[in-house]
């Protein structure tokens, strides 16, 4: 006799169980939104508005709305430090610098090593990205920033969204909102000013006599000619100096007072002519790279 039923019926049901562990420590936060698919450790305090999106492991710590520090360990290293800053400064011609203060909301997304520092008080920033000239201001403190590929300064920013790919040098000042997307070497501008010669002259015993200058051939138009007037001025100066020597001799020896020394030997040097040359190199943005993306 055969049975249509199996010899032994085994009914086993597996009920899957899901465990989710979440550790959240949050206090005094008005608005906060975060999204993290992976492991996360977040500690926030006294935050008014903060938004962050990070794909992988992250470590974030925010302290007050004005001063906070965020360290992110993701695919790349990111270090942001933004203390309270109430001053901003202007850099010289064509280049502007500023300091950020109490940015309430900001969103950043970057995939290259980025170093952004903002500082407090009177200072100057000497920047040495790679091949650039550093800008120097009147200073009481010195801060030098070295960034391999990116140097980014922002100040008075309300909302910032930026995406940087490769070499970027950017200075912004007093911006409300801006969004930026840059490619390779978006903009580069260099400005240099060199002084060829400052021709100095003397007031020799009351008469103006310039020094003469002999320059390389490329500045041949700046050559000086020794004129006959200069020779005559020297003769006059020699005569006056002889009289002054006599006058001083009588004073030193206590002889009869020779009278007041005339104002003929005035002491004042003057710059006859100053020649400067400005060199400016400018590389415009290459839009073809942007369109090809």
């Amino acid at each position, binding site marked *: 006799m055969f049975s249509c039923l199996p010899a032994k019926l085994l009914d086993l049901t597996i009920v899957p169980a899901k465990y989710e562990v979440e550790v959240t420590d949050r206090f005094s936060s008005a608005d906060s939104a975060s999204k993290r698919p992976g492991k996360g450790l977040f500690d926030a305090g006294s935050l008014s508005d903060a938004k962050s999106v990070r794909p992988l492991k992250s470590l974030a710590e925010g302290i007050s709305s004005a001063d906070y520090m965020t360290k992110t360990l993701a695919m790349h290293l990111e270090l942001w430090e933004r203390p309270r800053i109430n001053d901003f400064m202007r850099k010289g011609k064509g280049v502007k610098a500023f300091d950020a203060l109490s940015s309430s909301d900001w969103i950043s997304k970057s995939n290259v090593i980025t170093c952004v520092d903002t500082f407090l008080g009177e200072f100057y920033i000497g920047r040495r990205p790679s091949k650039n000239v550093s800008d120097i201001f009147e200073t009481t403190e010195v801060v030098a920033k070295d960034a391999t590929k990116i140097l980014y300064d922002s100040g008075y920013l309300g909302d910032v969204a930026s995406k940087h790919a490769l070499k970027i040098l950017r200075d912004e000042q007093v911006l409300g909102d801006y969004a930026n997307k840059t490619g390779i070497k978006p903009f580069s501008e260099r400005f240099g000013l060199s002084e060829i010669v400052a021709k100095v002259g003397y007031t*020799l015993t009351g008469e103006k006599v310039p020094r003469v200058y002999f320059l390389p051939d490329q500045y041949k138009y700046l050559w000086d000619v*020794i004129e006959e007037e200069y020779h005559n001025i020297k*003769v006059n*100066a020699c005569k006056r*100096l002889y009289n002054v020597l006599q006058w001083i001799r009588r004073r*030193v020896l206590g002889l009869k007072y020779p009278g007041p020394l005339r104002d003929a030997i005035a002491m004042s040097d003057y710059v006859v002519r100053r020649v400067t040359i400005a060199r400016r190199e400018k590389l415009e943005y290459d839009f073809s790279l942007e369109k090809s993306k």
Partner: protein
Amino acid sequence: MSLIEDKLEKLRDLLGKMRYVSEGEYVLADHTNTFREYASVALDALKELYEYYKAKFGEELQVVEDNIQMAENRLKFLERVKYGDVVATRDHNIIIDCLKSIEASLIEIDKSLWLASMEELYRLYKEILYAL
């Protein structure tokens, strides 16, 4: 005092050799050499005067010493020229640099002498006041 008198006498002789020039005249080697010699002798005279000043008032004037040192250093670079040499810019510049240094030194000595005379007057004024 004979040293300073000798130097002033020599300066007078050199001044007699100097000539004014006008447009179109040649630049002679003697012009540059006379100026060079004048600057050298005038510098020696200045040093003599300064030594007398230090001996009399017992103080050193840093400005004067710096100017003397600068003028001496500049004169080392100026050599005598001869017929056929190119008139270089240094022939002009070094001479006026030296003359300017001598002038500045003399003015500084004059200032110090004026201050010393004012102090002497003040001292006499106080003595008269006490006597009255």
